[in-house]
Every structure is written in C-alpha cells, then in structure tokens.
C-alpha cells in the first residue's frame, strides 16, 4: 500500500511502500538487498525531481512537517541512499567491501 505524498509529487507513489522507511538501517538494508534495476528506477524517477522537491520542502518548518511532506523527505533520503550504488559502485553493495552482515548500522 502506498503512503501519502504531496499532490505535486504523486507520480512517485509507487516507490513509497518500499522506500519510505524511517531509519537509515532500514533504507540501507533495502538498498543492499535490492536489484540494480530497482535501484535504477528509483534513482531515475527521483533525480530530475530532486531540486523541485528540495525547493518545495524548504518552504516548510523542518520540525513540523506534515505526514505527506515527511514521507517525501524520507523518500529523498532513500534517493541519497541508492545514489552511491548508481553513481559510484554499479552495485547494491560496496564492491570488494567489508561484509555488510558484519557492519552494524545503529540508527
């Protein structure tokens, strides 16, 4: 079930179920265990909208975001999360990196 987004960004609704998760640990695990196609589709949908998203969210008090706006912010965090996979690593995990199952993300 998709989560609510501000109306002008409703086109991103299909990503909210998986990617609007509130902790870094959840977003990170979602990325590490996803396929590249899935990461690519989130990245491609978000990148051209990111400036508009930031300009829009910057108009609100960060401490008092509505649920839709908070969901949009968290979706942006997920864009950031997958960006290194797309832009640098060409892989969900860090290639030749330390085993992620042994790397604890606390928050």
């Amino acid at each position, binding site marked *: 079930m998709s989560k609510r987004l501000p109306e002008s960004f409703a086109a991103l609704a299909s990503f909210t179920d998986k990617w609007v998760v509130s902790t*870094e640990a959840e977003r*990170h695990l979602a990325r590490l265990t996803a396929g590249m196609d899935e990461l690519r589709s989130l990245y491609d949908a978000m*990148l051209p909208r*990111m*400036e508009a998203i*930031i300009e829009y*969210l*910057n108009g*609100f008090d*960060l401490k008092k*975001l509505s649920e839709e706006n908070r969901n949009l*912010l968290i979706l*942006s*965090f997920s*864009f*950031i*999360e997958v*960006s*290194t996979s797309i*832009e*640098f*690593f060409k892989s969900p*995990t*860090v*290639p*030749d*990196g*330390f085993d*992620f199952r*042994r*790397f*604890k*993300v*606390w*928050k």
Partner: protein
Amino acid sequence: MNAPAEKINLTYPIKDTHSLKITNSLPDMGNGPISVGPYIQSEYFEKEKQKVFSRAWINMGRVSDLIPKPGDYVVRDLDVLGFTLLLIHGTDGVIRGFHNICPHRGNGLAIRESGNARTLVCTYHGWSFNLDGSLKHVVGEESFPAFDRADYGIPKITTDVWNGFIFVNAQEHPEQSLVEFLGGLGKDLENFPFNDFNHIARYSAHVGVNWKSFIDAFHEAYHLIMVHARSFPHMAVKPGVWLPTSVRLHGPHHSVSVWADPDHKASPAEALAWKYGAAFTPGKDVPLPGLNPSADDNWWFDINTFFPNFFIDVGSGWYFTYNFWPVSVDETIWEMNIYQLDAKNAGQQIAQEYTKCLLRDVLYEDLSTMERLHKAMHSGALKTILPGTFELAVRHQHWTVEQWVNS
C-alpha cells in the same frame, strides 16, 4: 631526522601540486621497515594493556550520547582495561566513573547496560548507593560491627570531561591531568563548537585485526588512490590527492590535514548536497574555530588522532569520531559516530544524509583490507611493513606505542 619546524618541500614527481608542511620537529622515528611483531604477539599485547591502556586517558564517548541527564548511567565492559566501567551523571551534574562493583561482596551494581536512577541498589543483598558513589543504606547495618561507612563507597575510576567527551584513566593518580594529556591537540580543538552538533549516525564492526593496523587505515590518505577509487573517482585519479598537506605532532597525538582537489567534479547527488548544504566532499566551507590549523590551501578536513585509540575528524559542518577497542591481539571492535550541525531546512538535511551515506560506504572500503593484512602478518611471509613519508602518522603511532611499551 630532526627536521626544522617549518615547511618541508619534499621532492617527488608531483611536487608542483602542493607541499607537505610538518609544523614541528620530528622525533627520531627512523624511516626503515617496521617489524610486524607488535601487531601479532600476545606478549606485546599484554604489555600494551599495562603500559598504554592502563596509563593513557581513554575516551568513552560523549556525555550527550551516553548519559545526557542527571541520574543516567551506562555500563561498559572494557576488556582492554580489565574492568567494567559504570559511568554516572550525578544529580549535581558531575560525571563520575566507578567500577561496576558493590563493595560488600562484589556483585555487579548496575545489571542493565544503561538506565536512569536516583539510587543504585545492589541486587545481591540490597546495599544502596547515592549517585556520587557514597553508601546510602545497608540492610541490617547493626550486623557489621567493625564498619566505617566511608570505606564502602563504590570503587572509583578516574574520570574527567573535555569539551563534552568523557575520558577515564585506570590510574588512581594519573601522571598527567586530562588537559595536560590532550596537550596541543586538545588546545587546537578547544573552541570547536562540539556542543552545537547533533549525533546522526553510529556504526560498529568486530574485525579480526590488531587495533594498531585498524587505526593505521584511518590516518593517512595515501590509500585513497586504490581503496576509494570508486567512491572518490575524480579525486582518486588525480595525482597528489592522496597527500597530506600538513602534519602536526602533539606529543603522543597527531593531526593530519588532507588536501582537496579544487577541480573535483561532483556526481549528480553530490552536486545537490553541495548546492543545498554542507557535504563531506569539499563543497561549501563552513568556517569553525579549530578547523584547518595550518591554514592550508585547498583544505578538505583534519584527521585528529588522540593516542592511543580515539579519533575526532573535523570538517565543514560535520565531525566524526572513531573508537578502536582491542579485544585481543587479533581482534578489535570499531565504533564510529557522526555529528552534524542542526539542519535548518530539508535541503540541509538531505545534504547531511548524503555526507552520512557516503562516509558509511567509504568505511566498507576501509574495513575491507583489515583481515587480509592481519592474516599476512601471521603468515610468517611478511616480516615488516614500510610506511612512507605520506604515512608519517602510521610511523608516529607505531613509534609512540613502542615508547610507552618500553618505558
């Protein structure tokens, strides 16, 4: 190699990029190979426990993360020091350290890892203690005829706080006060506004490597060309990016400033982070006291290594810490905490998210080499390692441990 206290121009093929400043004279640390013995011998590790970890001031983390409010307490098992530490934030605001021991018969006083209390009550026979460690109440006190209450406080551990960071010292009367021990490095960072930052991430890993090798992965930039060729692609291919711009030795501690490539080309996500906030990669500068102490051109960030096992790396709008906890000669627990200035809007917070995620992914790369090199040291085939001038901090750390172990 007692170099003069001024700029040293090293001659190497890319000397036109910049030169390495060493701002104080260097002790005679040699420049040859270093034996791998200290990294793999259990006897050496035992000496390190006695001569290094039982003498130095050891960082435990920040008050604001561990025990922010009066009554808060936290328990940490410190294998390397041989005791279990109980840290308490007193109702008087004082941070105190104790052995987690009831002086009656030795039961652990706090049996949970952390909590908040007004009184600590032993779960064995109910002796209770005030948060300053003094004895509060003994059940059936009349049954202890030769009894002086003052002798039965919770056993103390020397504890002090610098800039919000808690340090403990296993000695009852340390050779130096905390401020004396932190010396010039503490002074350089004295006015950095640590309290204005928020804790935004914590990572840890238990890795099969000696604690010194682990530390050595983090205070030189020479490895950027290979280990971080993916995560810093544009920087890694540029000659000279792996050079420190300046090195400052402060007794057992040191500080290394790292060069940033002014021609660095941001990736699309990184470009957003630069545009709307402060990012780990050199984008907008946020000038703060304590940063870039040697006033280097194209400065990126400072790596500050507090002997023996603690780092505070500082940059524009962020800082992060590492703690390296030796478990045995062959194992180390590593912890990282990231702090950033308060985000004023969503754009700044998204930029901070970028910094955090990039740093974390870079750490996967850093940790990847650790167990390989420790195995190599045990193989018998690798008798020595050879840190070069760009890895001066590696040599200094090794040399300092040697000095302390042999003192």
